[in-house]
């Protein structure tokens, strides 16, 4: 039987768009994103740790591993984890993955191939490997050190250099992340109400129509709110605007991004107005 990996939860830094440390945000009542991440990791790993920045001197209830170098993002966390326990594999996730579920993690652990350097999921958006829900085997450590000394700071680029087993996500949105208050609301509602498949009609206007390459399309979504749908469309249709500059109408009425979606809704996306 395979030895269970250790777990590493990347706490991340302050989020400018959330206005505070994302790990502290409550995902459901009484449970922060950090607590939830550790709880999930704890269920599939031997032991789990919180990866924190070198200058983070707060007291945590859970075991922590401090970054050994600054400004190297997730790669620094993994480097410090291997320095802490070089002989074990590390399952690395991030606390800003509110849609991550236990079954997705179990699926990853089940699919793990210890003869590769890493076992990971393929991004549903661009088909590239996802570095932040990945099992890194001890054999990846030497490559990590080499890439870091070559100046590489992008975890995705590092993962691309590894011999890896890539698997498809069993739940499509499990690794969608959470950068804005609207994303968190989407996550809260989906945890409390579940995510059912809906078919909606999306209309694109102005520059968004040019980005999407069509006036309208039928789109299948499991998003609960229109903000969740926007995130899916932004990534998959490579829309060029940020949510702050876009307005949305549902069935020809202006709505807020937190509006829940219903089957057969018509969702119209408006770039900044420029009449007159």
């Amino acid at each position, binding site marked *: 039987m395979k030895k269970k990996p250790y777990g590493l939860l990347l706490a991340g830094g302050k989020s400018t768009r959330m206005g505070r440390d994302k790990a502290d945000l409550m995902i459901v009542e009484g449970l922060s994103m950090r607590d939830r991440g550790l709880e999930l990791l704890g269920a599939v790993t031997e032991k789990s740790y919180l990866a924190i920045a070198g200058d983070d001197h707060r007291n945590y209830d859970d075991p922590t591993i401090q970054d050994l170098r600054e400004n190297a993002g997730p790669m620094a966390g993994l480097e410090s984890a291997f320095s802490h326990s070089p002989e074990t594999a590390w399952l690395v996730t991030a606390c800003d993955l509110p849609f991550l579920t236990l079954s997705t993690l179990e699926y990853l652990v089940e699919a793990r191939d210890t003869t590769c350097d890493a076992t990971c999921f393929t991004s549903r958006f661009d088909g590239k490997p996802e570095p932040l829900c990945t099992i890194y085997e001890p054999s990846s450590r030497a490559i990590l050190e080499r890439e870091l000394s070559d100046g590489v700071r992008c975890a995705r680029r590092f993962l691309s250099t590894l011999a890896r087993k890539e698997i498809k996500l069993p739940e499509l949105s499990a690794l969608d992340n959470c950068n804005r208050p609207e994303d968190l609301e989407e996550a809260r509602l989906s945890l409390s109400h579940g995510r059912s498949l809906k078919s909606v009609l999306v*209309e694109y*206007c*102005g*520059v968004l*129509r*040019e980005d999407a390459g069509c006036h309208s399309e039928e789109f299948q979504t499991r998003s609960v709110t229109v903000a969740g749908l926007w995130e899916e469309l*932004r990534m998959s249709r*490579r*829309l*060029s*605007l*940020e949510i*702050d*500059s876009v*307005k949305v*109408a549902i069935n*020809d*009425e*202006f709505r807020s991004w937190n509006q829940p979606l219903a089957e057969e809704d018509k969702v*119209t996306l*408006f*770039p*900044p*107005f*420029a*009449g*007159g």
Partner: protein
Amino acid sequence: MFLLTPEPIDPTSLREAADNPHAGAVSIFEGLVRNHHQGRKVLRLEYEAHGPVAEKEGRCILREAIEKFDLDYAGATHRTGTLEIGECAVMVVVSAPHRRETFDACRFVIDEVKRRLPIWKKEFYTDGSSEWVGCEGCRGKQH
């Protein structure tokens, strides 16, 4: 009273709609296509509107203006499609018993039209390039 049209705007007929024996003043605003924008030479424009939402919101703005300024009449027309330099892109006509209300209402209507209506403008420049107005600053990183 609110209209989106792909046809050239006819100022005379729009002005006549404001005739009313109760009204002592009519104010008109016409927005025209000019040949320059932020230092670039403009060749022509294309306006795109979301018809159902723009018409509903446009009617709403006019109702608000009538109530707010006690008008006898308020009308607005916005063009869609391709416009050449000098063409009328938008026209606002309001009437009321006295001039002060019509000046204020005319400004209110055009300001709200620009702020609230789902209408987009693409500018075509003499150097062959084009740009969606208002989207330059908010483009994401992926383009």
